[in-house]
């Protein structure tokens, strides 16, 4: 379980997170929604230990990662698989080497086993035959899928996706959703998805948290979200009020 308590963060005087309180349940898929520029990526970077908050704590399975350093922090970080908003693929490595990278660097598997696992996973994200290409030689949607494969290859306990389907066509989006549900069914992992597509929330999330002006203003199930009376949530969903902009609902 991930528990965030009173998390504050500002950049050069600009307050981005202003007292986040959030509990992300284990083994479920939780979506975080909110306006573009609202601090969703910043929140994710705190959860995975990349940024240190000005104030507040983040408990991962009971341990406060904001107070951990060195090897003890690394032990927690190894629970995570992360898909960055921009993919963050290693651009000097081929697709195959990108996906094999965590196995090569962090495990003792021999090249035979690595090949087997990487090829199976690339097959699942329908990228077989692309192994030898470099990240700048494939399309944006393919890059996303490679990033997802790289995050999944270590079979982490917690998968974190920063906008996994933004800018992708409906069919690719479906494939990626199928991947997520398939993966969580297999390994029963916790998933955190940042998105601003209501459609996606309704399709795959178990819970949804809405981030607005640095705070979590709503935490419910997707069904309750669309019937919510909260004016900020209503504004975000309908895209009418100044609360938010609706993207491809």
């Amino acid at each position: 379980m991930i528990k965030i308590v009173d998390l504050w963060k500002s950049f050069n005087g600009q307050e981005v997170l202003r007292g986040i309180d959030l509990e992300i349940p284990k083994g479920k898929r939780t979506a975080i929604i909110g306006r573009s520029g609202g601090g969703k990526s910043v929140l994710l970077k705190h959860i995975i230990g990349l940024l240190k908050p000005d104030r507040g704590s983040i408990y991962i399975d009971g341990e406060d990662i904001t107070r951990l350093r060195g090897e003890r922090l690394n032990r927690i970080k190894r629970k995570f698989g992360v898909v960055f908003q921009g993919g963050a693929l290693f651009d000097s490595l081929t697709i195959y080497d990108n996906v094999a990278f965590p196995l090569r660097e962090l495990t003792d598997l021999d090249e035979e086993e690595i090949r087997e696992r990487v090829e199976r996973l690339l097959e699942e994200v329908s990228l077989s035959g692309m192994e030898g290409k470099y990240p700048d030689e494939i399309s944006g949607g393919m890059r996303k899928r490679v990033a997802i494969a790289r995050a999944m290859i270590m079979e982490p306990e917690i998968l974190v996706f920063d906008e996994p389907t933004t800018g992708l066509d409906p069919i690719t989006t479906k494939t990626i959703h199928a991947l997520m549900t398939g993966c969580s069914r297999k390994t029963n992992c916790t998933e955190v998805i940042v998105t601003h597509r209501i459609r996606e929330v309704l399709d795959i999330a178990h819970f949804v948290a809405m981030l607005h002006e640095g705070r979590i203003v709503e935490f419910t199930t997707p069904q309750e979200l669309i019937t919510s009376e909260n004016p900020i949530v209503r504004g975000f969903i309908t895209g009418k009020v100044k609360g938010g902009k609706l993207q491809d609902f």
Partner: protein
Amino acid sequence: MDLFAYIGREALVCVREMGRMMIFFFSFLYHLFRRPLRIRRVIREIYDIGVTSSSVILLTGSFTGMVLGLQGYYTLRKFGSESLLGSAVALSLIRELGPVLTALMVTARAGSAMAAEIGVMRITEQIDALDVMTLNPIKFLVVPKMVAGIIVLPLLASVFNVIGIVGGYLIGVELLGVNPGSFFHEMDASVVFKDVYGGLIKSMVFGLVLTWVCCYKGYYTGHGATGVSRATTEAVVLSSVLILAWDYFLTSVLL
């Protein structure tokens, strides 16, 4: 009043930068002595630096040796001591020009590439990706480059020296007619072991300095493509200046 405020601000920026560089260096030292060593990555970096720089080292080395032969000959002839040409060429190369020019060439070729590579990795979140995989970026990216720099610079400088001496020989002996026996005999008599290892120590220090500066500048790059290009330029300029400054200090200590 404004001028003082300006000077004060610049001085503060400068001090902060130096502090960050020292912290960067200490974290290099810390990770250098932590396992695993990642020998394969060090070898890979040695290969990269060597391959990118060797052709330019061969070219600059031969021309430097040739011009030393030419200049040395006309200067020495005024005193009727052309026979000393071999020792003049060898000593200037081994003690001074070999290490310094090699370091400057490697900075231009491999150092700038290092700064750009790390800078791009920073702005495209690849460094963050390494971090969440629990591969410390300093350990994984910076330590192999800096170790490779310390190892490879003396090797490249030695190549530079040998090629330079051959160039000096061609000009002095083959073209201008210095006696080949005295060319090599004087060289043999005047170059002592201290010159050679002094040159090698210089090369190692330059290798450390230039990889340190280039990795540091890339690691703390600014935003976007302009940030990376500025980081690269600053890396090359600062490395070059520091190489020449350190050359003075090392020469005064080693003499």
